């Protein structure tokens, strides 16, 4: 009884070893045999020939949340409208109403954004 899944355990161990053994061999080789010749330029992070300027941790303006909302409205709506349209003929009244409420909620967000003037590009 307890040996039913034993082949799976063996396979799992083999799969792990298949991934880990070459990695550890490569690591061992690099650790003990590979010649090292580091220098300041080689150890720098950016590798396109130019000296990096500034910081990678730039701050984005919080005003971008508006674009995130607009994106959400159209993207999420499309994701849900597709199965809705496919299954439309077989849907019950309640499901239809729920979907309409959902769409209306998103349209409300769009109307709000529109009224706020976000859709007009400066």
């Amino acid at each position: 009884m307890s040996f039913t899944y034993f082949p799976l355990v063996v396979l799992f161990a083999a799969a792990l070893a298949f991934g880990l053994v070459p990695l550890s061999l490569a690591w061992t080789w690099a650790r003990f045999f590979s010649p090292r010749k580091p220098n300041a330029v080689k150890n720098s992070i950016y590798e396109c020939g130019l000296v990096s300027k500034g910081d990678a941790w730039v701050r984005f303006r919080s005003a971008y949340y508006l674009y995130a909302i607009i994106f959400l409205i159209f993207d999420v709506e499309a994701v849900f409208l597709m199965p809705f349209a496919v299954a439309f003929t077989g849907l019950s009244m309640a499901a239809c109403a729920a979907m309409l409420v959902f769409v209306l909620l998103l349209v409300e967000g769009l109307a709000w954004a529109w009224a706020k003037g976000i859709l007009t590009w400066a």
Partner: protein
Amino acid sequence: MAIDQELKIEMGKQGVVVTTLQELYNWGRKSSVWPMQFGLACCAIEMIATTMARYDLARFGAEVFRPSPRQADLMIISGTVTKKMAPQVVRLYNQMGEPRYVIAMGACAISGGPFKQGYNVLKGIDRYIPVDVHIPGCPPRPEALLQAFITLQNKIQAQPLTGPNRPRHLDAEAQGEFPVPVQGEHDLEPTSNPGVWTVPVVIR
């Protein structure tokens, strides 16, 4: 330990293969030289042609052009090195892992070529980094690049692993960083790396 070449060939005919660790090591090194994906000017077009199906650089184990200097062994200076670009070339060379090799491809890379008199062109990349193989031509045909590559392979194969001529990665004392020139008021500073290149004396 050296093997008598005639004895080696004779034994090979009998089906006995004899080799040395050095030969095996160098055979592995020369058969997997990965060039850097790095084109500077018109010679780069010939370099691209060399990697494609007609000339097929892959036959020599060099088909993987790495877009990162960390993974590349060979830098093909394919074209005009402007003074604006030279610091970047030297910096990329410094970022390559040892052992690293350089092929200067075409007239511009080896001497400045037709733009030698220009104010903005470096008169040969060997002023800053050690070049292993120079190829003349404007631009050199893909066959010339193949020839240069085979020359480089022969050079790698012949490198002894011990002694004063051993490859740089096995020599703890060897120079690993080459100074990156900076843009000066009129020219790059310094104008050449004296450890690599000596200014020729003009005798009139």
